[in-house]
């Protein structure tokens, strides 16, 4: 038998879908495809593809260097397509007043270089609380952030979901 494992990408994805029985509504299932979302996004828009109260999973078309982000809580990044590096800096000054989610910093933060990780498709990395991070993709990548709803989170359910 053939058992080739099927992963998808921006240039090669196929959506399933919701078939309702009776009077149910597809929109209740918030059905989308993260590669479809990335295909239609601007670079580094953090589009919410899953939301559970204040918690989110955000999909980004990772193309070109990201802004520097900082969050007061842990986040994670999962690479769904491509190869990239994440660089970490311990900021000398932490901007106050930031709520949940990632905050976009203006420019490069000054502070101690903490290190970097090099990731490929399938790799999951911790974005530790309090560490500023910048993602540097090699070409077009697609990433998922495990985070909280914040200033960078974009909700466009009607555009991304079957209804």
């Amino acid at each position: 038998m053939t058992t080739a494992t099927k992963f998808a990408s921006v240039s090669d994805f196929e959506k399933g879908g919701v078939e309702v029985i009776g009077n149910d509504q597809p929109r209740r299932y918030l059905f989308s495809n993260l590669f479809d979302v990335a295909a239609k996004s601007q670079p580094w828009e953090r589009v919410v593809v899953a939301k559970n109260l204040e918690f989110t999973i955000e999909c980004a078309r990772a193309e070109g260097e990201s802004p520097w982000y900082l969050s007061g809580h842990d986040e994670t990044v999962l690479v769904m397509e491509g190869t990239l590096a994440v660089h970490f800096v311990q900021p000398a000054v932490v901007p106050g007043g930031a709520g949940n989610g990632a905050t976009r910093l203006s420019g490069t933060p000054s502070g101690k270089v903490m290190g970097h990780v090099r990731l490929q498709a399938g790799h999951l990395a911790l974005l530790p609380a309090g560490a500023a991070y910048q993602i540097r993709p090699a070409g077009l990548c697609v990433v998922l952030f495990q985070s909280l709803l914040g200033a960078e989170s974009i909700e466009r359910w009607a555009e991304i979901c079957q209804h």
Partner: protein
Amino acid sequence: MTSSVKPPVVHRDAHRSIRDPRYGYHSFEIGSFKFQRDEYFVRVTYPKGTYVVDVGNFLRAMMRDVAWGFFYGWVNFDEVFGTVNRYGTVDVFVGSYNAGYVAASTDFSECFDSATLFTCFKALLKDWTNEGYDPFAAPLETGSPYGSRHGNNDQAVDFQRELADRFVGLPGDSQPRTDARGFPVNRHFDDVPQHEPEVHAEPGFEGQLAAFNLFAYLSRSPVTWNPSVVSIVGESAYCPTSEEHILPILHGNDRVEWFLQLSDEITWQVADKATAAPRAVITMKAGDVAAMPADISHRGFSPKRSMLLVWENMTPGLEQRYASGELAPTAAEF
């Protein structure tokens, strides 16, 4: 609590078990329920009737119920029998969430102290699982559940899933899966790249950065339909799992749960949680994302072993906020 409904009687008496000389298995009694098995079937008798089910289906469902500590909400073994986790107590029911049983008043439910019921179900699972049969394994990867009692498979029944406290690979936390740790690559995932990320921490920051190959981790899962926990952000938990054949339970949600299909394909049957009436069929291919609302049950079918990221919200008391109507059953309105 503003409800005037009296809290249910909680049964706290230990189970009783007697060996059945015909097949070598024990029968188990707890509360008003009696559980018996023969070579092919499980027979559950309760004050209003009898429920019969294939023993393989029953053991696969019971394995999950026990291994997950009764899980979140409803663990329906099928459209008739199951448990509801009340977090401290557990309901065992026949027909309570099946419109036909309820209409005929043949539905029945009893509430048990969680630890007492757990002890009974674990003992039953050990006694009824034969040598060579692993209820966690896909059917093509294990032996037969049938026949009279022969040997045991305590190693399989005692399998513990891996639960990271914060993130896989951090010092003192869960670790990536390797051959050396006893996690070979599954036959369906021998084409999944096994390279690990490069982690470069500067002096003074050792142990603060972490990354691992999640796809490789899943390719090495020895079991099916059994989520691990790999990362925690607040109360948000990534619970990835490898799936093959049929989810042995119909999971009835007491909160919203999300699925991200990482590889291959799963089809979900969705039913009304209260009546078992069918509501939807959802096909998820690689990259698809879908929410399971808090008012449904779902059962998955995976023709090839696939990678699924289950995403849970572990906030304590969430089940009451959905049950009371404070929170809508859906994750977002648009």
